């Protein structure tokens, strides 16, 4: 808990303590912790002098501000039309098979979470996925295996 308190204080110091600082602070927590815990939300509310409900309301609105625990590497496979047409399901199944998790789940070692997301903006190079902030495009089953294997070694 003291670490969260410290992290939030540092982020508030960097981004300010106005309402406009809220989302950058939440993004900062995600960057460090991979998700925004109840404790983090309470601390942010205290630091910005707003209600925890307001922090919760904002945090839960955005798909990249996870309020569920996530792994070190969050894999987001694009499920929108162009990627779906180019075989998105094959990619998702390949990852599920490799990591032994389903969409929405996190591996037991807390290293990977697998999610589906809406349009990543790589429609001409689908299927596409993000691992944290890194984009991978023109995916095939082989390519995905290679990428995930690389991440497993990290």
């Amino acid at each position, binding site marked *: 808990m003291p670490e969260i308190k410290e992290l939030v204080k540092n982020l508030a110091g960097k981004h300010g303590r106005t309402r406009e600082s809220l989302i950058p602070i939440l993004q900062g927590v995600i960057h460090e912790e991979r998700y925004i815990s109840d404790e983090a939300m309470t601390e942010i509310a205290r630091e910005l002098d707003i209600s925890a409900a307001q922090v919760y309301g904002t945090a839960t609105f955005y798909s990249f501000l996870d309020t569920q625990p996530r792994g070190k590497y969050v894999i987001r496979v694009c*499920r929108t039309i162009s990627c779906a047409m180019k075989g998105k399901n094959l990619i998702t199944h390949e990852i599920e098979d490799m990591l032994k998790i389903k969409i929405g789940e996190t591996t037991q070692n807390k290293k990977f979470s697998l999610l589906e997301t809406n349009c990543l903006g*790589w429609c001409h190079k689908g299927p596409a996925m993000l691992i944290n902030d890194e984009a991978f495009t023109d995916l095939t089953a082989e390519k995905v295996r290679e990428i995930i294997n690389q991440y497993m070694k990290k």
Partner: protein
Amino acid sequence: MSYSNLKRVDLIFDKECNPKEIIKNTWAKSNDQIINELLESGLKGRGGAGFPTALKWKYTAEQPEPDKYIICNADEGEPGTFKDREILFKVPQKVFGGMVVGAKVIGAKEGFIYLRGEYRFLLPELEAQLEIFHASLKDLKIDFRIKIIMGSGAYICGEESALFESMEGHRGEPRNKPPYPTISGFRSKPTVINNVETLVYAFMICMHGARKFKDLGTADSRGSKVFSISGDTPKAGIYELELGMTVEQFVEEFGDGDTKAVQVGGASGFCVPRKKFKETIIGFEGVPTGGSMMLFNSSRSMFNVLHNYLEFFEEESCGQCTPCRVGCQQLILGIEAVKKGERHANYLEHLQKLAQTMKITAKCGLGQSVANSFFSIVENFKEEMIY
């Protein structure tokens, strides 16, 4: 460069451009001169709604409030609209240039780029490019700064007032309009919000003059446009083309020989079936588009296409107004029930009435535009919805 039947244009990605020089030359002009040049060019916003850029700038400039803002909307996450990423990646200085010219006209000291969360990987390079840009402004003794604000994965934040809410630290829920951003936008101050492509075109008009732009396109759709082309095409990618082509000409160039439909304008746009290719113009006199063009060949089920779009809208609806929140869910359940035979085919007419209600009563463009794809797909591919 011309294709067999389409004129390819190279205004946006043309490397022959010295942004600092253009800014310097533009600074020597009066605001009225710049607005008149834009007005003369016929430039309309490239996000799809098509509001004349010159008027947006003019109305904001006329506001007596001293604090004003210019915002670049780089969160247009419509499926198929990936052109903004390419523009920001390849010609960021032109985007910044458009912002500083807009800032001069309206009298803003500060500008923001709201970058979609999915493109966070662009951030380091954009920050580096901004440093170069700010140094140029310093040389020219221009007091203007741009800050990049990151989005967090919400399609609705491409809607201008939802984007302001997000920048102010709130849920990205659209505001009631009026007042429009030209009067009350970010921090309730007069704000110009343009998409990435519009800003670059405004800057290019400052460089080349109105004539070069005006000579392209048609009476209703002036200039060229960057298209993001995806789906069943051997030429998926980004192309800047002169406006005014028909869907037939487009398909001749980009289709795979078996194209049965083209979705113009992404999930919130219109689906054009083969029988209407010849008569449909891509532009404001036909089907307007923010640039997204998706091609479907005969192997595709249009039921699946519509289902995918509706799932997209269902998830991305901000949930604030009932027509959109409940309407999207009911449209999905409805088409599923018809497909399974749980409902008679006539039920599609009830669903069309629901889509029409959403068009009239939804609070913002998201809920209002669901009807576009719904109507055009259900009407043109009814048999695929049923069997």
